[in-house]
């Protein structure tokens, strides 16, 4: 199994639905970063391991939020590499993220789609 240690320097990606909109006045809602009761963590992707953003995400229905791994790590959360079938970049911010969802939302930035040209 592949291994990867997530450090505070890593950037984590999270899909943000466009319909209904989850961005109000340039701010992402905390709702995007809240785990459901039965989840053991919040799904994210490690930007450094994403090979091809345009083919990995449907940018017609979603955009991406970038958040530094330092945010959850400094709040005491463990970020764990968790590759799944079809997504080698998958990781989890483990535990119940509801208490820090607002912090994650405030720290997150909507991806600049112009960077997609690089891929």
């Amino acid at each position, binding site marked *: 199994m592949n291994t990867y240690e997530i450090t505070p320097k890593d950037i984590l990606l999270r*899909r943000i*639905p466009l319909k*209904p*909109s*989850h961005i*109000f006045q340039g701010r992402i*809602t*905390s*709702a*995007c970063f*809240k*785990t*459901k*009761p039965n*989840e053991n963590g919040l*799904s994210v992707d490690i930007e450094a391991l994403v090979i091809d953003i345009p083919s990995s*995400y*449907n940018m017609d*229905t*979603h955009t991406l939020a970038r958040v530094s791994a330092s945010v959850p790590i400094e709040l005491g959360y463990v970020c764990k590499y968790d590759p799944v079938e079809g997504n080698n970049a998958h990781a989890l911010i483990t535990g119940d993220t509801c*208490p*820090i969802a*607002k*912090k994650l*939302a*405030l720290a997150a930035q909507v991806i600049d789609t112009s960077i997609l040209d690089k891929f």
Partner: protein
Amino acid sequence: MFNTAISISSVSNSTRPVKKGSLADHVKLYSKEIEKIIAKNRIEEFAGLGYGWDGYDGESVSGATLELSKTIAEIMVDCSIHIDFIVPLRNGGVQFEFQLLNNECEIEVHPNVLIYFLWYDSLGNLLGKEQITITQLKKFAS
């Protein structure tokens, strides 16, 4: 407030104020009715969300949750609480975001129709979370 398009003519005749009071009173009443329509239209958008709508495991929002959310929107507007944003929650609930007394606040309507009030500081630190009832919300909001 929201991206939902509405027209003034969509305000029902039955909700129009009687012809007394100042113009400002009339405008205020109309504004509230329009704000309610916008909020309810926004909530209605969530009715069509299927499982996985968020690109992950987002649950669809039940009819009961939608109706309770509309009631909450009415209460908030009636009490002159300006709703910044309404979004579906990944667990099949609905979340209201607004500001109150320099705090960022949220009301979460959960799929089991329990209601929670959360408040944060400006840095996003969670200061508190309490379960509330509709009656408490009305009392609190007024």
